[in-house]
């Protein structure tokens, strides 16, 4: 558009009065705004600060925190050592050693002998959770982990299973439990008769 285009609409800022030009009304307005905030935060509950160690932050349901390895109803690890999560992992922080499942475990051929996640290398993207065909690996809302060494932050199978024990009350497995009726998306997902995992999920229910 050229500068002399007739369609060009020219706007002129409103003329400021003498009083407004001194910026005093604006300054007083600003003082009123900050003053309101100061009084509200000082006297009432205006402050948004959370007193952290005393008050715990509740992350949203889809928060991606520390991983856990889910157990099935017999207390066995659900993982079938298919390596899909380790393959999907963009930073290669998952290391699985698979082994032939014991003969008594009729529902699978393999299980994971060792399952190690380097929590320091992990970027908490949730790809492993999405890749898992049996919903064995899940990201929890557990966020305040710390350690004194790098080795301490490499979580093995026992530790990951203990995260499950720790969090299963607060966060039931995303599958294997009847989804709440209010959630339309999951209902649709469960009732769609498609591939193996979904059928298996219904069997588990």
């Amino acid at each position, binding site marked *: 558009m050229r500068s002399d285009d007739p369609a060009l609409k020219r706007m002129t800022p409103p003329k400021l009065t003498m009083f407004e030009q001194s910026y005093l009304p604006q300054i007083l307005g600003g*003082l009123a705004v*900050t003053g309101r*905030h100061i009084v509200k*935060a*000082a006297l009432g509950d205006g402050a948004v*600060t959370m007193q952290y160690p005393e008050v715990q932050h509740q992350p949203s349901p889809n928060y991606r925190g520390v991983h856990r390895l889910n157990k099935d109803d017999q207390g066995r690890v659900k993982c079938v050592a298919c390596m899909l999560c380790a393959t999907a992992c963009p930073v290669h922080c998952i290391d699985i050693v698979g082994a032939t499942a014991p003969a008594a475990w009729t529902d699978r051929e393999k299980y994971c002998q060792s399952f190690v996640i380097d929590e320091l290398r992990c970027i908490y993207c949730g790809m492993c959770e999405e890749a898992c065909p049996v919903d064995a690996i899940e990201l929890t809302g557990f966020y305040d982990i710390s350690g004194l060494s790098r080795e301490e932050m490499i979580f093995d199978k026992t530790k990951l299973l203990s995260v499950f024990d720790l969090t299963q009350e607060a966060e039931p497995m995303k599958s294997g439990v009847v989804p709440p009726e209010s959630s339309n998306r999951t209902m649709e997902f469960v009732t769609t008769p498609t591939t193996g995992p979904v059928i298996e999920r219904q069997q588990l229910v």
Partner: protein
Amino acid sequence: MLEIIGLLIKIGLVVGITQGAVAYLILVERKIAAFAQDRIGPNRVGPLGLLQPIVDGVKMFLKEDVTPSYVNKPIFILAPFLSIIAAMIGFAVIPFGPVGPNNPSLAMGPVQFQIAPGIDIGLLYIFAVGSLSVYGVILAGYASNNKYSFLGGLRSSAQLISYEIPMGMSILGMILLVGSLDLNAVVEWQNRHVWGILAQPLGFLIFLICAFAETNRLPFDLPESEQELVGGFHTEYSSMKFGMFFLGEYLHVITVSYLVVILFLGGWDLPFVPLGEQSGWLFTLVKMGVLLAKVLLMIVFVMWIRWTLPRFRYDRLMELAWKRMIPLAIANTIVTATVLQLLRG
């Protein structure tokens, strides 16, 4: 002899109390900063965070004092001392309470709530030593041998030559009305007539704006400019040397707040309460408390402004001072002088 002891006690009291007050002003500042941003502020050390200033002070002393190899050492060390001394000697003429022969007396005669009572050039003195603290900033910027610090020092000098003139002129009207440079005389005049803010509203406004520039507080903290000058003049300072700049700044805020209250907000005068003629310990202490309360409110206002207004660009500050405030201050002086002359006939 008794007089000298009394004087030393007074000096000790003023220095001690103001240093302690500064520590707690930093807590107040942090609290107000937090409230303005909908936070809570320091509340972990002691009840309501009341021990925070002590911990901060200890931290300041225990930190390693780094002197970079490339600085101009003598000036580098001199600068923070200059800054704090200039801020401190201003207290010599500030009346913390009533001064006069009718004051309640102890062994050595009537107690004067001023280190150097009866100085008739009090205002002139405060203006003189108040401007000295700028040398601390300029020298720190120069001695640091660092481009950001140097820019900070440069800005400080540009700021000085801008605000000092309107500042000096803004109180001329008040001095004309009172007819004295003695701070006590100013308070007494306001006691008898009206507060300075009513008699000289324009003078008050100009003086207030310049006071912010004088103390290097937002919106005029150009030499510091955390964002574009990485701390400006004190970038290279650490430990207690940095602490001294900090102390100097807050002491300056206290001095200037006293000055604003004494010059324009009536000093220890309360409207509709005839405190002025009373003397005796009770009333004297009440007057002192009134003055202190006003000063505290003024300091809170200074901090409140900090979280309201953004920083000025330094050419804008010069423009504001030279093109707006100086003409206004001159006009204010001329009008006051003319009206006074006409009234006197």
